[in-house]
């Protein structure tokens, strides 16, 4: 099959010294039920799944933990610091996550504004430096600002993750140029995290040449999360394939596809 040939031509996705076949990473939040979540993750083909660190519910322990439902031999757990508004809090959450004993990867979020959930870049850089020093593989959620992305790379982050649009907004890729520029300038993997709403968003994002996409709400809030997960898997592969194939140049005028010779008088 031609798709298999295309896949062979691509290099695997490597981040923090780990190699993965899928360029689609998915979250585990906001699903209506755990069964749908498990099936959606399976349909997405993702190998990396994100989880959050929260207090155990002292009265209803059996149900709240996500690991009752996820096969941790099958998926690589990427813990996040979602909900943290200071570098200090993010570092605290990251340390707790690492202590769970799965790996030393952390999806670092330091939020600066409650309405937009846009990152606090100063706090992000401070937390990234601390966590890198402590041996974490830091995947930093950031905005599409090139200079911040460069500073995160300098700080030793394993990957930089600019947003497509605000978390949970589904507005799609608002700044293709910004994301493309970050990808062009950085050596570490660039994974677009947040804001993808539907398959065309994922495809367009991958066509910018980024290494992967991380999404959650696009699947969890779809009418049929499992079907959307399958569509996203195809979209990420299609976008990656198109990027590797190299698109035709854009022209402002028409160029005929059929020969001009041999036309009738």
């Amino acid at each position, binding site marked *: 099959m031609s798709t298999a040939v295309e896949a062979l031509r691509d290099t695997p996705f490597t981040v923090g010294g780990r190699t993965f076949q899928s360029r689609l990473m998915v979250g585990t*939040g906001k699903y209506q039920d755990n069964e749908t*979540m498990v099936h959606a993750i399976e349909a997405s083909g993702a190998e990396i799944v994100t*989880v*959050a660190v929260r207090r155990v519910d*002292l009265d209803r322990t059996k149900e709240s933990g*996500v690991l009752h439902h996820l096969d941790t031999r099958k998926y690589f757990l990427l813990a996040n610091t979602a909900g943290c508004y200071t570098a200090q809090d993010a570092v*605290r959450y990251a340390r707790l996550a690492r202590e*769970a004993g799965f790996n030393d990867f952390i999806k670092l979020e330091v939020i600066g504004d409650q309405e937009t959930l846009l990152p606090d870049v100063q706090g992000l850089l401070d937390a990234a430096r601390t966590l890198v020093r402590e041996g974490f593989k830091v995947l930093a959620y950031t905005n599409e600002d090139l200079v911040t992305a460069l500073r995160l790379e300098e700080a030793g982050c394993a990957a930089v993750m600019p947003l497509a649009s605000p978390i949970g907004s589904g507005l799609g890729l608002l700044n293709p140029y910004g994301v493309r520029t970050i990808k062009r300038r950085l050596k570490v993997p660039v994974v677009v995290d947040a804001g993808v709403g539907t398959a065309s968003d994922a495809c367009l994002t991958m066509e910018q040449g980024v290494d992967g996409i991380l*999404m959650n709400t696009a699947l969890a809030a779809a009418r049929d999360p499992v079907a959307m997960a399958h569509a996203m898997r195809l979209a990420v592969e299609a976008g990656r394939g198109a990027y590797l194939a190299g698109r035709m140049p854009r022209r402002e005028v028409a160029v005929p596809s059929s020969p001009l010779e041999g036309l009738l008088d």
Partner: protein
Amino acid sequence: MTDTIDVTINGESRVVAAGATLLELLASLELDPRAVVVEHNRVIVRRPNLSGVTVADGDAIELVHFVGGG
């Protein structure tokens, strides 16, 4: 003399047996120590050390685990 102490677990006031270790505390809450991470007065206590730390009056304990998130 009292044989209980007051501690804060996950932000809630709780009365626990005096002299209890963190491991015993988890057992009393029916929590599997392999499924939670314990922070005791802001310091993470690794699983092998849970039986060596005794809870004192006024201690703040956080018990966390992984939940669904993006």
